[in-house]
C-alpha cells in the first residue's frame, strides 16, 4: 500500500512563490493528475515528491514514510521526463537495467528477465541491444517508462511525458500508459498542461494555478462543476458571464437569465458559465440573439464564435449555421455559478 500525502508544502525561488500551501492526497493505485498552465507549480510539486526540490515548509509522505531529508535515490519513486532523459551512452537494455544496480530485482527474476519483461510490457520486446539514438520519440518514451518501472517503484511520477510527441502518437501512448498503470496498480502522479489529456486518463485531477491548488476531483465533476472561473475556463471551452442578481435571475447587459438553484443576495454580482455544447439554437428559455463571427469545422461538429453585445460566445452545433444572426439559449440547469477572482478552495467528488 503506497498512498501519497502532501501536507501544506510551500516553496519560493528567489523570493517568488512557486508553491503556496499545497496539500494533496493520492490514494494507493490511483492515477492522479496535476494540470495547469505553465508556471502554475505542478512540476515543482512533482519535483518535491521526487526529492529534487526541498519544500520550504510542509511534508511529503509515501504511505507511512516521511520523506523530508530522504535523498531522491532512497525514495523509490520512478520518474519519466518530457525529454525522455535516456542515457545516450548506454543501450536500451542497460538503460532499463540501470535502477537494478541499486535495488534488488523484484520477484524471483534475474536482471535480464526483468529487463525483457519490462520491454515486453511497453511493447518493445527484443530491443535490449538497440541504442537510444536509433529509436523514435514514442519508442524512447516507452524505454524511459520501462526504466522507471524496472526497480518496482512505490510511486510513478510522469512529468509531461507526452508533450514532445505528435498528436496521434500522444493518444496511443497515453492509452498504453494508462493500461500499464492499471495493470500494475501503481500509484501515479501525472503532470501535464494539456487539459484534454488530464480529463481523459485520470482517476482524479488537481487543477493548479499560480502555486495553489484550485480544485481537486474526478475529471467529470471538475469539468461539470468548476469551483472557480479559472477552472471553468482552463478545462475545456466555456462561456463565462457576469451580472447582477435579481431574485432567481441574473441581469447580464440587456438580457435576463434564469439560473437553477441560484442562491445569492439581490443586487450582488455573480459569475456563471455555460459550456458551448449546452448552448442550443432556436427559441429556448434563456434566449438571446447574436452575430456569427467565425465558423470552424471540427469534424464531428462546428464551433461557432458569436458576438453578443460585445461579448465572445462560443457555440457547438452539428451543422454549419445558415444565417448571419443566430438565436441561442440554454436551460437554467446548464448554467453553473463559479467564484470569480476570490479564491475559494472546494473539493468536489472526494473519493
Amino acid at each position, binding site marked *: 500500500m503506497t498512498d501519497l500525502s502532501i501536507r501544506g508544502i510551500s516553496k519560493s525561488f528567489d523570493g517568488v512563490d512557486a508553491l503556496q500551501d499545497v496539500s494533496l492526497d493520492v490514494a494507493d493505485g490511483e492515477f492522479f493528475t496535476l494540470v495547469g498552465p505553465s508556471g502554475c507549480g505542478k512540476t515543482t510539486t512533482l519535483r518535491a515528491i521526487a526529492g529534487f526540490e526541498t519544500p520550504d515548509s510542509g511534508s511529503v509522505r509515501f504511505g507511512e514514510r516521511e520523506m523530508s531529508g530522504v535523498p531522491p535515490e532512497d525514495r523509490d519513486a520512478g520518474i519519466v521526463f518530457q525529454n525522455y532523459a535516456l542515457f545516450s551512452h548506454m543501450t536500451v537494455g542497460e538503460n532499463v537495467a540501470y535502477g537494478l544496480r541499486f535495488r534488488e530485482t*523484484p520477484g524471483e527474476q534475474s536482471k535480464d528477465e526483468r529487463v525483457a519483461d519490462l520491454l515486453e510490457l511497453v511493447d518493445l520486446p527484443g530491443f535490449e541491444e538497440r541504442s537510444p539514438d536509433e529509436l523514435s520519440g514514442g519508442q524512447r518514451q516507452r524505454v524511459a517508462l520501462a526504466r522507471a518501472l524496472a*526497480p518496482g517503484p512505490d510511486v510513478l511520477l510522469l512529468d509531461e511525458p507526452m508533450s514532445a510527441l505528435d498528436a496521434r502518437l500522444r493518444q496511443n501512448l497515453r492509452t498504453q500508459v494508462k493500461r500499464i498503470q492499471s495493470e500494475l496498480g501503481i500509484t501515479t502522479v501525472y503532470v501535464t498542461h494539456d487539459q484534454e489529456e488530464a480529463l481523459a486518463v485520470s482517476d482524479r485531477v488537481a487543477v493548479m494555478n499560480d502555486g495553489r491548488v484550485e480544485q481537486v476531483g474526478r475529471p467529470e465533476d471538475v469539468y461539470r462543476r468548476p469551483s472557480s472561473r479559472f477552472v471553468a475556463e482552463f478545462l475545456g471551452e466555456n462561456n463565462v458571464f457576469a451580472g447582477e442578481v435579481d431574485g432567481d435571475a441574473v441581469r447580464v447587459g440587456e438580457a435576463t437569465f434564469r439560473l437553477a438553484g441560484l442562491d445569492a443576495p439581490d443586487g450582488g454580482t455573480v459569475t456563471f458559465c455555460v459550456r458551448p455544447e449546452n448552448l442550443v439554437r432556436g427559441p429556448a428559455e434563456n434566449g438571446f440573439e447574436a452575430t456569427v463571427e467565425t465558423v470552424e469545422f471540427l469534424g464531428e461538429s462546428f464551433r461557432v464564435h458569436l458576438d453578443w453585445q460585445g461579448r465572445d460566445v462560443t457555440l457547438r452545433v452539428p451543422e454549419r449555421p445558415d444565417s448571419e444572426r443566430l438565436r441561442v439559449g440554454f436551460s437554467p440547469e446548464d448554467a453553473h455559478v463559479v467564484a470569480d477572482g476570490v479564491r475559494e478552495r472546494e473539493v468536489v467528488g472526494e473519493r
Partner: protein
Amino acid sequence: MTRDGETAGRRERPDLDPSVWLERHALGVLGVATAAVLLVVFYYPVLTVFADAVRVGGAWTLDVVVEVLTDPFYFGALAPIFAGEFGEVGAVAAESPLGLFGFTAYQALLSTIASVLLGLPGAYVLSRYEFPGRRTIRSLTILPFVMPSIMVAIGFVAFFGTNGPLNAALTALGVGQVNLLFTLEAIVVAHAFYNAPLVARVTTAAWESVDARMVETARSLGANPWYAFRDVLAPQLLPAVLTGALLTFVFTFMSFPIVLALGGFQLATVEVWVYSLVQELEYAEAATLAVAETAVSLALTYAYLRYEARESGGRTANPPPRKRLFPDSPSLLAAVERVGVVAYALVVAVVFVGPIASMVVESLTGPSGLTLQYYQFLVQRQVEGASFQTKPGVAVRNSLVFGAATLLVALPMGVTVSVLTTRGGRGSRLADAAAMAPLAVSGVVVGLGMLRGLVFGVELFGARLRVTGPVAIVAAHGVAAYPFVVRNVAPLLGGVDRSVVESARALGATRVRALLDVELPLVASGVAAGAAFAFAISVGEFDSTVILATGSSSYTMPVAVERYIGNRTLGPASAMGTVLLVVTSVSFVIVDRLGGRWEA
C-alpha cells in the same frame, strides 16, 4: 504481470556504515580535498609572498605599497594621481606616460590584436572550408599553446636571428635584413604564436555552431551577404572572439619567459621586473608589483567567467555547408578569396612552422654543416654523465611520469570544481573565480611561494612540514593544469540535461554514482580534452618547475633545455628541444587517439 511494488526489496541503508557515508558525501569530501590542495600548494605559498608587500623586517607597513604606487617608473601618469598630486600629471606624462604597467598592458594589447588578426582568418578557413587534413590541422592548433616557452624562444632566435632562414631568404630576395630580436615586434609575434591558435579554436567552435537558418532569414528579408554577416553572423561570433581576446590579454599581460628571452630587460614587463627584483632579493617591492599584477589579471579572469556563463546557453547548431578549396566554376570573388587563403597559409608557415622547423634544423647544424654531434652529446651525457649533471633520459622519464601523475591530481580536482560550480547559485561564480586563480597569478610568484612555503617548509606544532621534489612538482603542475580541465568540462557539464541526472537519482544512484555512470560518460570528450591540456601543461611547465627542481634530479625536459643553453651555441639545447617536441607530439597523438574514442 502483477503488482510488484511491495516485493521490491527496499534496501535499508544504515547511515552509520562508513562506505555508504563516504559515497553519499563523496562530492563534499572531494571538494574539501581540492580546497585543501589549493590552500597548501597555491593559496598559502602565494599569500606568503604577497604578505611581503606589507610586512618588511617583521613590521607591518604600507610604505612600500605607497612608494610603488606613486612611482612614475611603474605607473606612469597614474602615479601622481595615486599620490594625489594632480598638478604633476602633465609633467610626468610628458616624461614617462605609460610606466611599467602601462607598457605591459600596451604590449598585451598589441599582442591581443595580433593574435586576433592572425587567428580569425584561421577560424574562417577551418570552419568554412572543407579540405583534406582539416580535422588534423584543427587538432594541431592546440600544439603551440602547450609548447614550452623556452623552446619557442629558441625557435624564434634561430628563425628570426641575423643568420636565421628568414633573413637569408630576405637577403636572397634582395630586400635586406630585418632585425626582430630584442624588439617589441618579436615579443608580439611570439605572443601571437601562442595565442592566435587559441583565438582560432574558440572562434571555429562558435562558427561551426551557428544556425544557417538565421542567415537565410536575413537574406530572405533583403540583406545582402555582407549585411547578413554583419547583422546576424558577427553578433553570434563576437562572444567567442571576445573570449579568445580576453584570455589572450590575461596570458600576455603575465607573460614571462618569452619577454625575458626575446625582449630582455630593456623591454621588461611587470612579470620580468618581478623576477629581477626577486633575484635582487627586493621582496617587498616584488610582492607589491605582483599583487597589483594579480589584481588586474584576476579581474579580467572574473570578467571572462561571467561572460562564459552568459554565453553557455544551448544553441541548435545548423551550420551552412562548407566551401571547397577548389570550386568547380570559379568566380572572380571566389578566386580572390582563395588567393587570400593561400597568402594566409604563407603567414602561418612563417609564424608557426618557421620557428619550430628552424629549431630542428639548428639542432642538426654545426659550425661546419650538417652534423649529429649535438645528439651524440645528449647520448654521451646520458651514458657517461655524472649524477649531478642533467641527463636527457632522466628528463624525458620525469616529464612523462610527472605528466601522468598530474592527470591523477588535475582530473579529480577539475571535475569536482566543475560539478560544484556548474549547478551552483550566485556564490558559485566567485568560487569559480577563486578556483581559476592559478590561471591569473604570476608564475614567478607561485614558484617563489612554493620555494619558500613548501621546499623550505612551514613550522607547525614544533615540526617542520616540507613538501619537496617530485611531490611538490606534481602538486604544482596539478594546480596549474586543473583550471584547463574545469574550462573544458564545466561548460559541457552545464549542458547536460538536468533530467538525465535526476533520472539516475530517482533510480537509486547517489549523486556521485550519477556523476560517474551518466554525466562523465556524456561529457567524455571534454574530460579527454581537459586531460590533454593537463598533460601538455605538465610537460611544458617551466616557471615553477625550474625553481622546485633546483639542485635535485627532478628536472623535466624544458628544464633540461634551459640547462643545455650554452654561451656560444644553441646546439645541445635545440637538440633537447627537438627531443621534447617529438616526445610531446607522440604523447599527443596517443592522448588524442585515446580521447578521440569518445568524440562524437
